[in-house]
């Protein structure tokens, strides 16, 4: 027999939504935004340091930029492997997600998560579970831009 619910305990969907909205903690907007600004800025500042370092080795701007991106990807990937990235990301939010560190983290964390399903069907094939969308949509955007520019302009 189904338990009877006293009518005063019944909630309409609307009342339920109102209550959940009231008790769900709102993200502290200003604090999050400031932390994201500072941490993301810091990552880009470190990137600029690396870029100037690579440029001083005689790399062109484009090469130095590629080397910088690769280095930052390495750092993000290593910190993910060490289990440190998540702790930083919980604090920094978009500050670590928006720079390319977030891309590195999404690749490495997916690879780690699915490692137990095997080297081929797990680690390797699931590596792009999260980052795939970024590559697919980026490529489609570039394709459309390229077609428009070479056919019509």
């Amino acid at each position: 027999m189904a338990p009877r619910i006293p009518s005063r305990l019944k909630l309409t969907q609307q009342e339920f939504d109102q209550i959940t909205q009231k008790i769900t903690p709102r993200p502290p907007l200003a604090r999050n935004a400031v932390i994201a600004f500072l941490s993301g800025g810091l990552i880009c500042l470190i990137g600029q340091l690396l870029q100037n370092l690579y440029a001083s080795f005689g790399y062109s701007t484009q090469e130095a930029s590629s080397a910088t991106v690769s280095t930052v990807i390495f750092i993000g990937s290593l910190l993910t492997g060490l289990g440190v990235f998540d702790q930083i990301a919980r604090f920094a939010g978009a500050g670590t997600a928006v720079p390319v560190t977030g891309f590195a983290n999404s690749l490495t964390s997916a690879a780690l998560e699915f490692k137990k399903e095997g080297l081929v069907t797990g680690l390797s094939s699931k590596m792009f579970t999260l980052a795939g969308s970024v590559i697919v949509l980026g490529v489609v955007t570039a394709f459309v831009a390229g077609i428009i520019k070479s056919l019509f302009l």
Partner: protein
Amino acid sequence: MDYLTAFVVGGLFCLLGQLLFDLTPFSPGHILAGFVVAGGVLGSVGVYDRLIEFAGAGASLPIASFGNSLVKGVLLEAERHGLIGVLTGMFELTSSGIAAGIVFSFFIALIFNPRG
């Protein structure tokens, strides 16, 4: 001076991302994909490169730069080789980032184990 602009512009990208995370119902995955598409669109009209000239790593490290690099590779090759360049130039500038991401993630996932 380039350190200051890198810090401020890079920080602003992340601040915008955080506001979108907190204020819109979209998932971080949606928003980051949006950044890439926006970077591609800004790249196709040449705006993003000017931002990189101004802010250096502050504009080249945020993920929007990935969209810009894809578009730039495509447009450069299309100019040189015509329509086929749209495909051959796709990963011309981004291959280092994608290759680095794959190789580092592969070996690090081999060496380490997931926590928790």
